[in-house]
Structures are given as C-alpha cells and as structure tokens.
C-alpha cells in the first residue's frame, strides 16, 4: 500500500482537488488554441456554443446526481462534465440555437454518461453520442457552417435564441470543404472542381488553420503527458495511409491526404475526442488498434458513405470494439512465456 502519492510533490492545492480534475482541466486549457482559431474565423458563435454547452452540462450533471442521490461536490469538481460540454460545444456549428445544444447535452451527459453509471463507466464517448444524435435528428442545423464570419455576426443573438426565420437560416448555410467535395458529383474531376472555386474565399485556409490550432493544443497535451501519443498518431497515420492509397489510385476523384487531415474534425477528433480514456482501449497496443480503427472508419465513411465527415460515428463504432480489443491486447507481463507458447497452453485470454 503506497503511503506516498505523485500529486503530493507537484502542487499543494492538489490535496483538496482530485488529480483527475487536474487532467480534465488541462484538456480544457488545451482547447484554447483551437477554440481561439475557430472564433477568429467563425465568430463569437463558437464561444456561445461552448459556454451554453458547458453550462447545460454542469446543470444536467447536477440534476442527475441529485436524482441519483449522489454527492454533488466531488463529481462537479472533477470537471469531467465541464469537459464534455466544452468538447460538444466545440464540435457544433457556430451559434447553434440553445435548444439544439440542450438536446445534445442531455444525450451526452444524462444518457451516455450518467445512465451508464457516471464517470468512468460509460462505454461510449459522451460528447460524440450527443453530436451523433443531433447530426442524425437535425441535419439542417448541423450543417450550418457559414463561411468566414466577422467576430460578431449579424444575427448572432437571433440564431442562438432560435428566433431566426427559416429563410434567413438557409441563406446563412454554407458548405464545409468536405461537404463541397463530397457533393461535387461523379462527373466532375477533382481538378475541375478546385478550378471552379467552389468555396468562398479563404474557407480552406480557415479550416486548415483551425486544424493546426487543434494540433497545437494536442501537442501540448502530449508534452504535458495528459494523453499518450498512441491514439492520435495511429489515427492520423491510418487516415493518411488510406487517403494516400485512394489518392494514388485515382487522383481525379479522391481528395489528397493533406486535404483529409486538415479539414473537418480530423485533428480535433484525434487529439481531443478519440483520446477520452474512459471509452478508449486500455493497453498501449490496444490504443494503437483503436486509433487506427477510427482513422480507417473515418476514411471509409468520408469516401464511400453518405456523410461528409465521420469522426463521431467512427469513434462510437470503435468504442463498441473496445471490450474486444481489451481482451486481445493484454500485454505479456515480464516473465510470462512468449505468445506461441502461450497459445499452446491454451489459456490465452
């Protein structure tokens, strides 16, 4: 029984707040570059998303804990609900209406997390459950990625409060690069598509810079040892490999690997979503398979599926595979016989 603890030598204040909160808060801090870049390109609607989602998440967590007659303080202080809220908020289109965010948060916190038993018990990534539900149920609102916006867009308040007339709503909607490419049509060659200037000025740039900002935040997490490199690296590598394969086989119809890595939720998903430890595989080898599986599914759905982006679905599908991965990737403890002898003995788990 260890009488000493790693936290005792880092910070005195940690004796009052659990180090789990410390981890969660670091992840929240690391979202700053990504959120900053998004706000810069898509306006304050990003901040309103995150703020509302975080607020609702804390509220929903408190409500369920109260119903479950669990102590509120420790669970709220561990910041896990806050983090789920921030991540869900960050993945929604800017200035989403409040009710949309509310439904997403309820699916994430109440259904995906608390109904399964709370922190540490959920088999699925809560933020992605919320996102996937919204994507399937409210596709119109979920594709409202208006092109680059001034910091304070015109109809910001009306949008958030959900009072914007439908006609104006349509005018606002714009395609993301992935969307546009997906719907370019079979007959159009990739080179023709890009030559036709399909996207408003600067859209590609905006998405690339946002991806780079998420990458920066992710690297911060890795250097602070909050997350391990296994999942993000394996996910991005598997995406890159598959994208290269498609691109090399037919560059006139498939997008380049760079395009895939710098658009959509690839970077955000790799560093902030797929790395959720609770719903990911546990062993290092398992994490590599887990990340690679997400990357492959993302590429398959983006290329052959009907959704332009697929991080949420890919993560949820791989969450399903975690128990299997966990069983087959138990590392060989020091001193245990090598794999083949193991199999011979017939007790391989």
């Amino acid at each position: 029984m260890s009488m000493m603890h790693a936290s005792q030598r880092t910070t005195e204040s940690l004796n009052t707040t659990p180090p789990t909160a410390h981890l969660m808060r670091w992840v929240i801090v690391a979202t700053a570059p990504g959120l900053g870049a998004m706000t810069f390109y898509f306006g304050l609607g990003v901040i309103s998303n995150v703020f509302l989602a975080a607020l609702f998440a804390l509220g929903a967590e408190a409500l369920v804990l109260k119903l479950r007659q669990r102590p509120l303080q420790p669970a709220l202080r561990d910041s896990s609900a806050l983090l789920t809220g921030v991540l869900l908020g960050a993945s929604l289109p800017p200035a989403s209406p409040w009710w949309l965010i509310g439904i997403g948060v309820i699916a994430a916190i109440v259904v995906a997390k608390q109904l399964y038993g709370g922190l540490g018990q959920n088999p699925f990534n809560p933020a992605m459950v919320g996102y996937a539900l919204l994507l399937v149920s409210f596709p119109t609102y979920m594709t409202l990625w208006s092109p680059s916006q001034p910091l304070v867009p015109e109809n910001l308040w009306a949008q958030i409060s959900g009072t914007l007339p439908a006609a104006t709503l349509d005018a606002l909607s714009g395609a993301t690069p992935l969307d546009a490419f997906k719907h370019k049509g079979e007959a159009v060659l990739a080179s023709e598509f890009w030559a036709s200037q399909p996207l408003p000025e600067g859209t590609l740039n905006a998405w690339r810079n946002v991806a780079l900002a998420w990458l920066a935040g992710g690297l911060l997490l890795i250097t602070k040892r909050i997350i391990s490199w296994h999942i993000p690296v394996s996910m991005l590598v598997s995406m890159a490999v598959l994208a290269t394969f498609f691109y090399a086989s037919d560059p006139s119809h498939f997008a380049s690997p760079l395009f895939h890595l710098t658009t959509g939720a690839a970077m955000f998903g790799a560093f902030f979503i797929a790395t959720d430890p609770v719903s990911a595989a546990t062993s290092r080898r398992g994490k590599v398979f887990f990340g690679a599986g997400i990357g492959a599914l993302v590429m398959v759905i983006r290329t052959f599926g009907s959704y332009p982006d697929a991080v949420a679905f890919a993560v949820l599908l791989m969450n399903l595979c975690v128990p299997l991965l966990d069983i087959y990737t138990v590392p060989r403890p020091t001193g245990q016989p090598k794999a083949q002898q193991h199999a011979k003995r017939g007790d391989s788990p």
Partner: protein
Amino acid sequence: MPAYEFPGGITPPERKDRSNQSPLRNATLPAQVILPLKQHSGNPAIPCVAIGDAVQVGSLIAQRDGMVSANLHASISGTVTQISDSAITIDADGLDRWQVLPSLDWRSEDHQAIIARLDNCGLVGLGGAGFPTYIKAQMADHQRIDTLVVNAAECEPYITADDLALRHYPTEILEGAQMVARLCGAHQIVVGIENNKPAAIHALKEALAHVQKSDCQHPVSITMKVIETRYPSGGERQLIKKLLNLDVPSGGLPADVGVLCHNPGTLLAALYAVRDGKPLVERIVTLTGDAISTPGNYWVRLGTSVETLLQQVGLANQQLHQVIVGGPMMGLPLTTLDAPVTKTTNCLIAATREELPPAPNESPCIRCGACESVCPVQLLPQQLHWYARAENDATLEKFHLFDCIECGACSYVCPSYIPLVQDYRSAKQRIRIKRIESAKADHAKHRFEFRQARLARENAEKQARRQARQAQNRQTTDSAKATDSAAPMVDLRSLRIAQTAAKAAVRKAEKNLARAAAEDPSQRHDDLETQLATAQENLKAADTRLAEARATMAQQESP
C-alpha cells in the same frame, strides 16, 4: 557493464538524507524484549524455554517447526517472564552476557556444517519477506546457480539501512557474499546499487580493491554495477533484469535463471553467524520521519518495542500522525506502538501528517492508463482493478494478477487515488483461500498418509527393538540355530532400494516445499510440510528396517 531496462517505474521523492547523514549508532539496550514466534515466512517457531528460565544473549528460546520456519534466540540476557501463543517476553538483567557458538572457517568447513549453522542461528532474509536463509543456501542442490546478486539497490524512499551497512561493513558484506557464493556454487557475484548512495559505492570500491589485492585465491569474481535510481529497481526480478538482462519466468524463482539474490544485511548477519557464532539477535534499523529529532540508523536488539526505540530518538508525540514499518511504498502502518522490532523490520517512519498525508477519498477510475505506464511487470492495473472490484477471479488470473509484485507504483500515480495494491492484495488472498479450500481433501489425504507413515515407522522401530532383544537372548542362551540366510540377503537388497527411494522422496518433497515457500513467502504451506513429514517418516522407517536387517545379518555371520 551496461545496464538493462525494466519497463515502467517511478521516481518518488527519496527523503533518504534525513537518515543517512549520521553514522551508525547502537540503540540503548531495552529493559524488556517481546520476541514474536513468527518473524519469518512459514510456521511460527515452538518455544523451548519455560517461564523463569535464565537466558543469555543468543540462547535458543524457540525452535523451528517444519522446514520453512526459523529458530529464535534471546536478544538480551535475563529471565523469561511470559510465553504466549505468539511471543516470548524476556526481562533484562542488564548484564548483556552472550552465549555464542564456536567459530567456523567458511573457506575450509564442510557445506553442510555451514548450512546447519545458518539454520541454527535463525538466519532469515532481512530485506522484507524473512525467508529462511538455510533453505535458500540449499537451492544449489536442486538447481545450477551461476550468479549471486547482492541487492543493495534499496529503492524505497526513506530507507537507508543497507546504505549505512555498506558504508560501515563493506569488507564483511563482501566476505559474506563470498561465503554464500561458495555455498551455492555461484561463480560470479554482482552487487547492484542505485546511484543515490555515493558514500556506500565509494566504500564498496575501496573494499573491492582491497579484497582483490590481498586475497589472490579468490574463487569468485565480484563486480559492482551502479544503476540509475528508479523505483522499484530493488525488486528481485527488476534488479535481475537490470543487472543481467534475464527474465525470471512468471511463477518461477531467480534460481530458474541461475541467480540467487541476497540483501547486504543478510550477508552480514550470515558472516557473523558463521565466523563469530552469533545468532541473529540484532539488526540495523532506519529510524526516520519528521516526528523524531535524531533520525539515523541504529543497531537494534530484536524484540525492542517500537515506542521505546522511537522515544530514544526524540519522538514528538503531538506531531506523530502514523508509524510505518518498512518503506512508504510497500510498508504498513502500525496500529499500536507496542509492536516489537522483528527480523524483517528494516525501517520505522514516524511520519507527521504533512509528510505523509492520508489519501483523499478515491474517485472513479477514468482508465487514463497512468498505472499501466509505470507498472514494472507490464500488467494492466486498471483492468485488474475493475475485475478485482467485481470479484471476477477467473478473469483476474487471466490478466496475470499473480505476477503483480505489489510495488505500489500504480497507486502512487493514480489520479483518482484508488488504493489499487490494496485491492490486488485482498483479491489474491481471496483466490488463495479458495485454492486452499479446494485442496482440503488432498490435505486430509496427505495427513492420513502421514499418520500411516508414522505408525509404520513406530512399528519398524518396535520390531527392531524386539529383534535386538531376541538377538541378545540368543547370544546369552547360545541356542542360535543357523536359519536360511538366503532370504535376508534378498531382503537387504530390496531394503536398500527402498531406503534410496525414500531418500529421493524426501529430497523431492523438500524441493517442492522450498520452491513453493520461496515463491510465496507470506503464506503457510501446511500441505507441503505434511508431505515432507510423511516422506521423512518413511525414510526413518526404511533406515530402521535396513539397520535392523544389517544387524541380523551380522548376528548370523558372527557365530
């Protein structure tokens, strides 16, 4: 020599400078000692003194029971005042008279004599588990040993007992190592020491140079390997990996890869037992922690109460939060200060609340994997935690629960403050109890066999006595007739074979028990002890029958 790596590990604050700044001192002789009968792995010793007996330092007061057990000696001279089920109390007469055994020269003496001396002197491993040293010395009978590893890593924070022992007695410890190496047939000695003990390393270097210069007929080469400081490099398996790049197989012993590990303190005590005839009655204990004013290392008589000892070094009662026996990673908090110092007490930490605060309430596991990355055995601690809480024993074993060395690195880094090692310990205990339950029928069978063997032996002895009487009668009456001598001839041969078989059975039982006990020193191995006793009874019976047949033969031939 290059150092190899074991996976995982942590670097907790060392806090060793609190106790390694002052030289080794002698603790004041206690007025009373309480000597527990079980200070070692295996069965408790059986008292062989009575209340009121006068004893001297080194007098045998309790004898080992079975093979895995150890003798116990008085650690002060005085009078036995109390004998309970678990301990013997001696009140001091203040004279400190010693009773030592004759000195043996380990370079020329027979192996068996030295092993018997280690046994008589109650030598056990002083590092922690308290495994009887004489059994370890006999390992070479069953397995080839190439290397003796002197485990001077002392990787746990706070503890400096080996450090100070190495600084003060480097030549003696190396000589002890030579002696044990000779016993087990090792042809090299490797001293593994962490680089945070420069003074001890320096002392060892000088002693090594001196030894190699003066004593040319050294049979065994000694090398010292300084390794990086990382907990738990002092774990037997981790150290062997680090020094020799050998993997001790799961469920196996270092002897399986030709290695024997000894703690420097044990080697020192072994030398004292053989060279000076001194039984194990005192040891070096690190007294440290913020709640005492003169921390350091002390020679302490076994059985001294922790409270008396700490009071000598300036215990501040109002600041004391808890006393920990052993290190902060693997040690246990004392529930009462009346507890005595035993053969395995290497360190006492009188900690204040600020220095080792109680762990906050645990929060749920978020499967962050921090535990996995520090596990020196490459287990999946978070999965084990899950299954341990669910009492899913079959899966626990599949996830190699029994490979866990309980080092506590996972608990140390767990951001949710989950007492992981505690969970594993209780799960292991639960599974062990289950195994014992399921082996109960076997044990009953073995006990029955033991009884049969004992009766057979007694019969054989009775028979022999009767035979002897008859022979005497025959001699006196001189009415002996020449009976047919062919039958006893055949008998003698089959009896000799039976005796050899019985001897082999004893050796096999000893080997099984030694293995089981070394693999799991914290447990009792009653069933294997019974099997060994049965084999011993059978051997005695066979011996008796053979002797009897030989006597008859001699009788028949002599007239």
